[in-house]
């Protein structure tokens, strides 16, 4: 009575086929990542060393290390964060905790989505016009970081809003009904319970910022500058631009060098992501609802 019919068999065959197809697509997705990582490790690995990380480039960037670029990237990212996180978190708090649902809010939301869609080269030109020329910061870490900040703001806002949304509405209602103001609610309940999510978003953001090239090319990153920056008004080298330079602009670079730079850059990004994932796991374990 319960034997499979011809129709059952046919459905099962189709089922297997689709399943296989989706699995293949998933594997296809992983393939480029795996290839990139393998090539980088195989070709770039040998040029990695302590000296590579902690010395300056020499002989027209065909030898030596990448210290100024590594330090420069850290500078750029940190200054960009200092600018974008307070603004982004404040804007997200306004949009998710205060703003009424009206045409102004909708326009702001639309603007944020569009800002996220602006190509990075356009941000770069905006940075040249606004920060380098208009505010007279010159080509400097400050101008480059602010350009990066403007570019990453929408993502900071969106990820912060997601984190805020994850705090149950019932907690807010409980506070409001006891006569807490919105700020008291935010400070005592919403922020303490969303800080993990906000941090995670921010760290993911950092890793993206570290890899950007276009926005910093015209605003503060230097082609070759074998000194460490002393203040935000200095220019600096950066890993991403350095990679572009040694790959395409300089003759007679040993084959392993660009791969080494790329490996350091990707290592930096991945380790930041790992920290972010670790954060999330630790803090999620602490959640109480």
């Amino acid at each position, binding site marked *: 009575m319960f034997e499979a019919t011809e129709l059952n068999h046919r459905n099962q065959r189709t089922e297997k086929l689709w399943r296989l197809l989706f699995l293949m697509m998933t594997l296809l997705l992983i393939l480029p990542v795996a290839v990139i990582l393998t090539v980088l490790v195989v070709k770039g690995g040998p040029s990695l060393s302590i000296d590579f990380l902690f010395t300056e480039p020499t002989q027209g960037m065909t030898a030596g290390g990448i210290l100024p670029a590594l330090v420069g990237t850290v500078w750029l990212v940190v200054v960009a964060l200092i600018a974008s996180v307070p603004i982004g978190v404040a804007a997200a708090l306004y949009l998710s905790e205060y703003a009424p649902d009206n045409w102004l809010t909708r326009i702001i939301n639309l603007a944020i989505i569009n800002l996220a869609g602006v190509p990075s080269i356009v941000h770069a030109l905006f940075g040249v016009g606004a920060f380098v020329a208009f505010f007279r910061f010159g080509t400097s870490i400050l101008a480059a970081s602010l350009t990066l900040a403007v570019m990453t703001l929408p993502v900071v806002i969106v990820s912060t809003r997601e984190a805020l949304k994850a705090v*149950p509405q019932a907690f807010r209602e409980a506070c409001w009904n006891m006569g807490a103001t919105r700020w008291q609610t935010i400070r005592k309940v919403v922020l303490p319970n969303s800080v993990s999510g906000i941090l995670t978003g921010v760290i993911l953001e950092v890793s993206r910022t570290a890899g950007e090239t276009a926005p910093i090319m015209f605003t503060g990153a230097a082609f070759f500058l074998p000194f460490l920056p002393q203040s935000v008004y200095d220019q600096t080298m950066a890993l991403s631009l350095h990679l572009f330079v040694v790959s395409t602009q300089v003759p007679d670079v040993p084959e392993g060098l660009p791969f080494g730079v790329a490996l350091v850059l990707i290592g930096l990004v991945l380790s930041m992501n790992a920290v972010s994932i670790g954060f999330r796991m630790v803090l999620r374990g602490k959640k109480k609802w």
Partner: protein
Amino acid sequence: MVDLETLPEEPSESAAPEVDIVHAIETRKLNLWYGTFQAIFDVDLEVKHNLITSMIGPSGCGKSTFLRCCNRINERLGYVRTTGAVEILGHDIYAPEVELIQVRKQVGMVFQRPNPLPLSIRDNILFGARLHDPEAAKASRAAQDDIVEKALTRVLLWDTVKDRLGHSARELSLEEQQKLCIARLLPVQPKVLLMDEPCSALDPKGTEAVEELIWELREAYTILIVTHNMAQARRASDECIFMLHGKVVEHTKTAEMFVTPIHKETADYIEGRYG
């Protein structure tokens, strides 16, 4: 079942401080719209001081909406418009000079799902006190402990939780959580407690315990309780309001409503013909 014969006829005489207040909540021609949808029509209600009044009626009849007018929490939604007057303890809470914080302090609310904050039991109790009284926030640990003990004792929870005040409130059972939610309102000394189906998330035993507690509190607070559970309205309230389609159909003593309802709609609802 509570013996209604023994209830005080005029509670305002026995209530000490505000002798002149007969009605804790009084509304006149209250109308409310969610956008273009009208949820409440010309509601005139007088909820007596220091009694338990229950509101019954089918889903969507406007009971919860009415409740949420009494501490102006509806306004959070932004697209809500109200006309008419709501007076709490004789004062119009929709008057322009009214400070919402003061309204919320006087009028506490308990929700359908217990919603303790993700803090310790102790901090949940002290939360309101700290908000409204900066002194309480800075008070000595002993003074704060005293507030916590009083509030928890009042809701019959002290003995169960006194050894784990530092634990998260979310570890408690639903019944205990709901009691805690009532307890955390008490330190700021509200006059009116609004309860929106406070037992509907609880099991029968929890329901019984929370009902007992509500009954226990009736001497000191005016309690307006929305419920789906007619048996609950019947056994745990002094007066009963029946709402239908955003209007008040009937408002009498609970004992009378369930025995001799005046309107046909009330009788039909009570007998379970709809709802």
